[in-house]
């Protein structure tokens, strides 16, 4: 019973997602609206000096996202090392 209800609701959600991204509802693939991106592609070289526009977006236009992303990596490393730590305290020799 639970399985069937779950499956039906899951199918409903997937159908909605699929319906939402198909042409009459969603714009066509390959023809995006591009005000912001056109500005970035045109001006990235002058404003940041970088030939790689993606790098310019990552480290200049949306640099806080990249700082956040590096922070998330740092967080995960700290988390993994925290969880896999030794639980015995070393004899403190001070």
């Amino acid at each position, binding site marked *: 019973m639970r399985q069937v209800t779950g499956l039906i609701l899951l199918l409903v959600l997937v159908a909605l997602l699929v319906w939402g991204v198909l042409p009459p509802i969603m714009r066509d693939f390959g023809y995006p609206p591009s005000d912001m991106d056109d500005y970035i592609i045109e001006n990235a*070289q*002058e*404003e*940041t*000096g*970088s*030939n*790689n526009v*993606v*790098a*310019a977006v*990552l*480290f*200049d236009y949306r*640099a*806080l996202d*990249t*700082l956040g992303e*590096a*922070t998330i*990596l*740092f967080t*995960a*490393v700290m988390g*993994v*090392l925290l969880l*896999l*730590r*030794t639980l015995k305290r*070393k004899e403190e020799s001070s």
Partner: protein
Amino acid sequence: MLSKIVRTVANQLILFILIFGLYVIAHGHITPGGGFQGGAIIVSGVIMLLVAFSSKELKKSLRERVLSIMESTGALIFAALAFAGIGTVFFYNFLVGTPIFGRIPVPGPGPGDIWTGGVIPLMNFAVGLKVIAGLSAVVLAIALFSSGEEVEE
């Protein structure tokens, strides 16, 4: 620990992986790639070493304390570069127009110049350092823990 052939080949191969990774990091602002991608390439080399030798052997040369310091340093360099622009605005690209990485390329398609990009190449290096240290530490910690070894505090 795997057979001697594997270990010898891995020993030779790590150099090339290291060079390729560093190349990808250094050219992040003119060709596809960057700090994350190059760092991931180098970490794949570390994983190769981990498979070829064992976590016990690798622990002798890659200490987790050192990795932790490296990672914090990389993150701090990144944050410091962001703070350095605070004279105008946080994250301001203050090196554009200066002699250090400050050249501005001719707009439009071109051959690419390594001395461009302002703080972007420096940030790529900081992120690369961080990714190398961080992912190596994760892989090493999980391998050590699974084989019953002690993980450093």
